[in-house]
């Protein structure tokens, strides 16, 4: 029986990929990429989950043996920041695109070809 976390995160990745491939509006494609990144982050986190353990913070009553895997959390923290940076970059490009082309439809944004 596949865990609901894996199923959910992979569905999110696929939904994001679908949006990137099918949508024609630049902003919707960027939303798709964000959804995909969220799915990847959830997948990473659920790989580190150990059933029944608590957050990996050493404090009273919680020793090292009662914590979930802390490494994926560090990875996801990094990946979230990278995702936000990419999205910010992409949105500023979308602003320039709208200024120069007057549209956000990818089928009309075709000056470079060949």
């Amino acid at each position: 029986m596949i865990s609901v976390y894996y199923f959910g995160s992979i569905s999110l990745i696929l939904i994001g990929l679908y949006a990137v491939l099918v949508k024609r509006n630049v902003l919707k494609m960027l939303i798709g990429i964000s959804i995909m990144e969220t799915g990847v982050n959830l997948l990473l986190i659920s790989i580190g989950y150990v059933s029944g353990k608590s957050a990996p913070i050493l404090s009273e009553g919680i020793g090292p043996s009662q914590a979930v895997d802390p490494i994926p959390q560090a990875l996801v923290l990094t990946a979230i920041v990278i995702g936000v940076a990419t999205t910010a970059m992409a949105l500023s490009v979308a602003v320039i695109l709208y200024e120069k082309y007057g549209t956000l439809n990818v089928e009309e944004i075709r000056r470079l070809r060949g």
Partner: protein
Amino acid sequence: MNGQYASLLIALPLISAFFVPLIKGLGKKAVKYYLVLVTALQTGIAVWTFQQVYGTGQPIIVMAGAWRPPVGINLYIGHFAALFVLIVAVVSFLMAVFSVRAIEVEPIDKYVMLFLLLMLGATGMIATGDIFNLFVFMEITAISAYALTAYNKTGEAAEASLKYIVLGGIGSSFFLIGVALIYGALGTLNMAQIAQLASTIDPTVAQVGLALIIFGLAVEAELFPLNAWAPDAYQAAPHPITAMFSGFVVKAGLYAMARILYLMQASAGWSSILGLLITLGTLTVIVGELAALRQRDVKRMVAYSSIAQVGFIAVGFALGTQAGVNAAVFHMVNHAVVKVLMFLAIGHVAVVLGGSELERFKGLGKRMPLTAFAITIGAISIIGIPLFNVFWSKMQLVMASMAAGKTGVIALILAASVVEAVYYLRLIHTMWFAGEGEKASEGLVISLMLLVLVAIVVVIGIYPDYVWSLAQRAGSDIFNVADYIKNVPLMGVGA
């Protein structure tokens, strides 16, 4: 001296990038010369590292925070990394000098910062010994590359950048899923420990994980289905940045791909991944060459040619033999030299004459004889004519594929060379035998850089032995995983 100083390769560009806003107060010129200074320093450190590694024959292992791997992140500067860190630094230095003349668009301080971060990311990708750290450096490279592609602020630049961002976003997500799968199966992110445990991994997880990682890196490395951004980005990006993309950003992606691929040699089902890579490489060559054939813009044409050469390199890595890897590394070195020469010369023409369409190259032999000469040497070298450097690496690729029994690859390389000859000879003909024009000023510094690069092309062409021996040592650094594991002082954790 202590090998840990090699961490300056990462630290210097990073701290220099932070100082750019301070330097900006001194004026626009100051920022550009600051960039030249920093890249010159970086070249110095890279030369020192290179001497250290090739002199002692031992790789430099930099341990972050003195935590031994696999707990801490380590940098592994072996023969390959030392060679390519040097190439990255030298190419960056040349392009920093070129930027002084070629970049007039504001804001120049952002340009300098992104330039340094691009160099930092590529150096990190080549030096790192940890797959998640590789992802971080790949994203540093990619995000600076997105921003630099859009730097000219024209509609075309934004369009090219958007394509790059969308493909890069998908690619990096795939890469991260691959990392997650491998981490989930092996419980480690350190490359040496992954190699150690590779034989125990579940074959399905290994195949899916590796395939996802290769797809993710294929965006940076410009392999076929994911390289649609490349010609647009090459055409729309500032001229020095184009040369950097072709000179080392692609190489960093290819290297990372080859490194991870060969780390997992021991895993079951590895050869089917080689099959995937050989298909991707072959398609890249075919699509790149055929697309280059019908271009009217010279920069775009050379961009497609560059993609096709990347396909050769990927095919070399995918042969799965020592000879193939050596040949691919040799081709990487030669291609870096030649393409930097080509993009520098074409960028120079575009700066002086105001565009890179084929019509503007008419009569270039009379207007800018030295630049035209440099383009000619670069072009005939890429076609693979004896006495020029690319001939030897194509020769080695042919010999390696003969030894591996892949005759299809030989046919591919030879046929592609014929197609290359067609479009490059058309360019040479346009430059020397068509059109008239008065002389344009060429600029002393750029002429000098072009002459140095031409000299390197010809010297490697006539005396290939030295560089070939470097490539062999770098190739065994990738292929011989047992040595790689032995060199990294793994702490006995877990396995």
